[in-house]
């Protein structure tokens, strides 16, 4: 390893990156775009969900209850239904997102303190699920004005009130916690951009013929590889800072652990992804192929890492597969640090897994990269 040559490769990369507008736009644009798009999922103040109400009780109390629910503005009746079965049909067809059932024995259930109202929710849409939670906050059985005048009583009625509305979620019994999204998003964005950047960066040089010139010079494989990884590593840290800033500023995402630990965990994920990108680049024949191979990593990462679906709910085989993915370990680290205030070293198994992954990928990439054309 020769520092002058390594520095030359680094300088060249930075100069090229500066002139590559598309890459620059991706570096800044992707985090901002993703964060704002996912921000809608975090923002739960939903209005006007299409709904149908099956009021089987048809008493003055039940009608008042319906009016209260409509007054929240969360739901808007779009269809008529008499029975829960009709509601389920409407739900399945996608005509409504929320169905409200007020049973025949509504008032008797209220009196007994049982669940008096059932809300059927299209659980395939997690945003709708969260909105239903708002509906459940509507007081049951007592008109709100009276409620306001009896503040002390209201406190004590909270548990009773919560149990009187039951939410039944169809199609997706698990709920993705909104606050989980931003830390996870750091991982998703880094996985998406880092793997692709490095994979494409080396293949592009091969396509343009630069590589044939480079390998005929004394520059070594390690100098080339490290010279490629470091600049993009810096890009990754910039992206991380951007997401953290926007996440805390726009959505109030907490950073309960130390910021240094957040960056340490992130740096490991960045290196894991960059070295994986390098390995891809040693195999891919064209930039297009490099992109395709990136997707083979990206899709399982999104689906299996625990970003989309809870890790513990997955079948064993999927869990084993997920353990190979760096994003899985990163998510455990970053959620631990940001949300639970843990230190990274308390989560050492995942730390170790990432370090091992990086070492393996780098070794494979450097040993697979030949200064030969055949």
């Amino acid at each position, binding site marked *: 390893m020769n520092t*002058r040559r390594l520095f030359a490769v680094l*300088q*060249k990369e930075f100069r090229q990156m500066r002139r*590559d507008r598309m890459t620059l736009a991706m570096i800044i644009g992707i985090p901002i775009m993703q964060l704002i798009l996912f921000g809608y999922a975090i923002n739960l103040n939903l209005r006007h969900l299409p709904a149908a109400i099956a009021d089987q009780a048809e008493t003055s109390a039940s009608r008042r209850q319906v009016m209260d629910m409509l007054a929240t503005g969360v739901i808007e009746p779009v269809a008529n239904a008499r029975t829960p079965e009709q509601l389920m049909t409407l739900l399945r067809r996608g005509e409504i997102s929320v169905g409200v059932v007020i049973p025949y024995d509504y008032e008797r259930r209220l009196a007994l303190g049982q669940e008096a109202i059932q809300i059927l929710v299209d659980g395939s849409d997690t945003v709708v699920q969260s909105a239903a939670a708002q509906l459940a906050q509507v007081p049951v059985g007592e008109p709100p004005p009276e409620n306001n005048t009896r503040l002390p009583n209201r406190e004590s009625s909270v548990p009773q009130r919560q149990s009187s509305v039951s939410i039944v979620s169809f199609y997706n019994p698990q709920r993705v916690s909104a606050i989980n999204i931003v830390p996870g998003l750091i991982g998703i964005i880094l996985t998406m951009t880092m793997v692709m950047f490095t994979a494409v960066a080396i293949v592009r040089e091969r396509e343009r*013929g630069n590589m044939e010139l480079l390998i*005929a010079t*004394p520059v070594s494989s390690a100098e080339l590889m490290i010279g490629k990884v470091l600049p993009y590593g810096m890009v990754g840290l910039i992206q991380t800072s951007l997401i953290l800033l926007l996440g805390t500023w726009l959505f109030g995402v907490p950073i309960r652990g130390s910021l240094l630990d957040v960056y340490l965990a992130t740096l490991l994920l960045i290196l894991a992804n960059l070295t994986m990108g390098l390995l891809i680049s040693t195999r891919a024949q064209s930039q297009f192929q490099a992109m395709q191979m990136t997707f083979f990593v990206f899709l399982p990462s999104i689906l299996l890492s625990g970003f989309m679906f809870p890790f513990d709910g997955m079948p064993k085989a999927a869990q084993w597969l997920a353990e190979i993915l760096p994003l899985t370990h990163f998510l455990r680290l970053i959620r631990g640090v940001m949300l639970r205030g843990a230190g990274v070293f308390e989560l050492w198994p995942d730390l170790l897994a990432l370090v091992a992954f990086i070492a393996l990928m780098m070794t494979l990439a450097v040993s697979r990269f030949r200064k030969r054309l*055949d």
Partner: protein
Amino acid sequence: MDGDVAIRARGLSKTFGTLKAVDDVDLTVSKQRIYGFLGPNGSGKSTSIRMLCGLLTPTAGEIEVLGLQIPAQAEILRQHIGYMTQQFSLFTDLTVRENLEFLAAVQNMSARDARARIDELLVEYHFEGRADQLAGTMSGGQKQRLALAGAVIHKPELLFLDEPTSAVDPESRRDFWEKLFELTDAGTTILVSTHYMDEAERCHRLAILERGRLVADGSPAELTGALEGRTLLVETEHQRSARAALMKVPGVISAAQIGNSLRLLTERGQAGPEKMQQALSDAGIRAQVAPVEPSLEDVFVAVTHSASRAEREKAEASSEERS
């Protein structure tokens, strides 16, 4: 290895799958000389060059370059050679100076040496005032000059040039060859591949490659001298019919139409001018036949003829069947 030999290869072969790209080539390149590889596309020129500078592993054969065993000692060799690829392979999104800076650093030159050498090269290769222009925005001739400047930045002993002038105009080509002669005067050995006859004529020594085989090797004068008496020029107004008549004469290898005349290449000891004159008058064509100096093109046709005649006849037969 004796002191004045830069490259020596014995039985050099390279197979890609079932294709024999280079087939049992022997060659010796003397120091401070321009050695040319002449051959059509696909004749194995690039593959040979890549093997000689250690970028491809030979399927068989031994290579010794600057006293180093290739490919085993290729890494050491890389500090002593310059390599100019067929396609422009510098970075199009870096400026002229940035490209040279990168190459200088990669060749382990100190920052101070690099700066001095780059300033020198910018003048020598006519890039004054263009140092900050992006390489990708330059013309073919400029790119080629830049590529050569980059290849010689560390003053290599040996320079490999793979079809360096395929994308440039004739004037740039002439300038380029001036530079090559300056380099050999300064002690550099150059191995250059080309498919231009005029360029091949400028080489000190020449190897003609055809389908991976070395079919002729020698100085241009030696190669053309061997054809003495086998080339004729036919002056006639009826070139098409004259050609048809002459191609039927035994011993005629080729009759190429060049402007108002036909250039004939014949087998050794066969078919003097009188015989041709006779054949033409028999066909009722008025023409004058006279001997002419052999050119490298004639050499090329002569040495590649035997290998390709069989196939050409086969191709002609099948195209006649179709029509």
